[in-house]
């Protein structure tokens, strides 16, 4: 039994037919080819799969694709401008060396943007607390925290 969905992904209308147990991350990666969203733990604890659904950061391994029917989804591939100019948060991660292996990075950036949307002037303590849902094994978070603060300042401009 298949489920038919309509949603918007990175500004484009998408129609898809999926097995009911298909997760949103599986739809994105396997059917839409958006492999920038990564699966790190399958259980909603590492945050590598974070995307935006209707403007909120959501762990896409914890959501059935069917639950995103009608939703507006933005993934890491949808952040940069049409000419390739990176989103200020992406740019801040590069400038601050907020990534090493790059695997958690896409989810980290999506969470960071959501964090700043909710806390435009977040303190270091708030940034650290808000990043609880995203694991990074490479950076020790030091430069991620710096990047989020710098990205927040750039987003405010």
């Amino acid at each position, binding site marked *: 039994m298949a489920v038919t969905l309509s949603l918007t992904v990175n500004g484009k209308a998408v129609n898809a037919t999926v*097995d009911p*147990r298909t997760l949103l991350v599986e739809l994105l*990666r396997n059917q839409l080819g*958006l*492999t*920038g*969203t*990564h*699966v*790190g*733990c*399958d*259980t909603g*604890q*590492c945050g*590598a799969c974070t995307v935006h659904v209707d403007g909120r950061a959501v762990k896409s391994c914890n959501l059935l694709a069917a639950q995103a029917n009608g939703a507006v989804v933005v*993934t*890491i*591939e949808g*952040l*940069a401008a049409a000419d390739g100019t*990176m989103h200020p948060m*992406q740019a801040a*991660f*590069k*400038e601050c*060396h907020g*990534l*090493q*292996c*790059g*695997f*958690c*990075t*896409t989810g980290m*950036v999506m969470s960071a943007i959501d964090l700043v949307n909710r806390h435009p002037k977040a303190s*270091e*303590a708030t*940034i*650290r*607390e808000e*990043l*609880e849902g*995203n*694991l*990074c*094994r*490479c*950076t*020790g*978070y*030091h*430069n*991620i*925290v710096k990047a989020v603060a710098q990205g927040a300042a750039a987003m405010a401009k």
Partner: protein
Amino acid sequence: MGANEQGVIGKSIRRKEDGRFLTGTGQFTDDINAANQSAGVFLRSPHAHARLRSIDASRAKAAPGVVAVFTGADLEGVNGLPCGWLITGTDGKPMNEPPHPVLAQGKVRYVGDAVALVVAESIHQAKDAAELIDVDYEVLPAVVNCVDALKPGAPQIHDQAPGNRCYTWALGDKAAVDAAFAKAAHVTKLDLVNNRLIPNAIEPRAALAKYDRAEDAYTLWVTSQNPHVERLLMTAFVLGLPEHKVRVIAPDVGGGFGSKIYLYAEETALVWASKRVNRPIKWVAERSESFLTDAHGRDHVTHAELALDKDGKFLALRVTTTANMGAYLSTFASCIPTILYATLLAGQYTTPAIHCEVTASFTNTAPVDAYRGAGRPEATYVVERIIHQAAVETGVAQDELRRRNFIRTFPYQTPVALTYDTGGYDACLDEANRMADVAGFAARKAEAAKRGKLRGIGYASYIEACGLAPSNVAGALGARAGLFEAGEVRVHPTGSVTVFTGSHSHGQGHETTFAQVVAGRLGIPVENVDVVHGDTGRIPFGMGTYGSRSLAVGGTAIVKALEKVIAKGRKIAAHLLEAAEGDIEFKDGKFTVAGTDRSKAFGEVALAAYVPHNYPLDKLEPGLNETAFYDPTNFTYPAGTHICEVEVDPDTGVVQVVQFAACDDFGNIINPMIVEGQVHGGVAQGIGQALLESCVYDAQSGQLLTGSYMDYAMPRADDLPSFKVGTKVTPCTHNPLGAKGCGEAGAIGSPAALMNAVHDALAAVGVKNLDMPASPHRVWQAIQSAKRA
């Protein structure tokens, strides 16, 4: 060094690789798919130790979408997974090396041991079918603790390892140590457990194996830190395939920390099976599989004794360690608690006599192998914890006791086999003291006490042996492989350069650092240099990335290739400039006739090499493409001092790291930003070990109790402070870059620094000896026990 090199080397150039990672266009193994691809799932043992009475896969084979099911019985002619390091015991015999079958044969020996491979059209069908395999297990008693495994009557895991002993091995002069203890003014004794860790790279292991019937050739995409090593072990030792028919690609890899060095069962089974089903097969570990089957780290139980004279000079160190190998020997398991551990027990100190005996045992747990630091954090933990304790007992200040014993003349031959080429330990200690504002600690402690908190400060002055390794030395110590590195510099006709390196980057930023090395030496823009790694079909035979070796060894191989490029360029330029070769100087990207303004740019020489119209073809081959293999002449010895400050809440047992300062000597630094990032990450992993992380198996059932992120406490952003990181430089004396390596230092120094701080804080309430991790539960219990005592 020319002006251009000065402009590139030592600069925090932003990383070339970041663009793809930040826009979601990186290519990790699971992002790659092949036409007609099938999905692989491994059925794993739910028991820690059991005899396989029978396996009936008939229902699974008939399930929807199933392509094939393979068990150990099907793998005829397939050898076990090899161990790459032979340890010879104190009895003169080789270590016990029981078979490590790709799929279980006769018995399963840990929870997660692979029993069958199911190949199906989809991952869901493969998972459903795996549940239909009927395995009749005769459950046997299990043992998970490395000391318990050696006791009489412990469950016997392998017929080939009586008493579950892999080896007992020793290093050092026992008689000299005994003599020194006999005349000691003071002896400090300490029992330590180095807690078992699960690496947890955020990218789970994955593999995609593709067989090409027309060519009788295989391609394997795999999460590996060293694709050539992976291929060599798989083809030559396990599957008996010719190497030229197997291409191993390690594309973007999402963190390794050691766990992706090894040849694992999964990719080996996939490669073998891809020919049998004549289809590409992909397997991606779920996080639970990562917890169960990635090679774990640490897991030592140690008794140590330090002898001091009346002035606090160390006379001797005596160490006895039991190390857990897990159920089977992983690729480098045997050398971690021996060659990479006991040799580091001199630390930064002149201790004249050291003896270490290590017994390695098999248990019903996942194999244990190198994890960031690999033996060196364990050694540092022993040395720095016992020095802390000795300072407490003798009433000497922590930094002062260390200073009284620092090595200050180089080269220095330690009593445990290594020769340190250079170092400057006082400088790092002084700077760390300054960074940590140790002078202000007493005031901070008093202020904390007013709030009811216990403050403590802890030191760790670590050393590590990196730049693995001189092949002849490693070979004499039991290595079954060379440890050189390869680099190829391919200059294109218009003067841009592609570098092919045997090192592998999985977060370390080689694409930037190596490009800086090349751009600096050739005097060309960094943008004109690209670095290729991770593909046996493109790069020269290299040994990969581990042991903080990439810049010191892999970078040097590139420098050696560059030297050949420049030497040939000088010949070409001499011809073009009608000068003697000996008069040609190369500087700032130009070949110049010495003492004149006549010169040829590097790009002009490159073009001449590929369009050799005016070229000494009778004496010189066209082209500008050089390869070098570099085998180091010594290890490198990064060292430094880490100072950790903690605040303990005695009511809850919560330990907060309030400050962490690290001053390290990595030799010359190419990109300070990347180096600092490596230290941050290493320190976070070390703090994770000391404060949060602990792999726990149930002692009776052998079940992994910490098998998810809900049970295994990974450091999260709000567990950690921002770090203070500094460096001092004594250049390595035996490689042209003067580089020592920085990848592991953070994880090596920090656990001891943190635990020493915790002990300093808890001394006020009478806690004497606490093992890692200093979780609230354990700290609170220790405080209560001390109160009762």
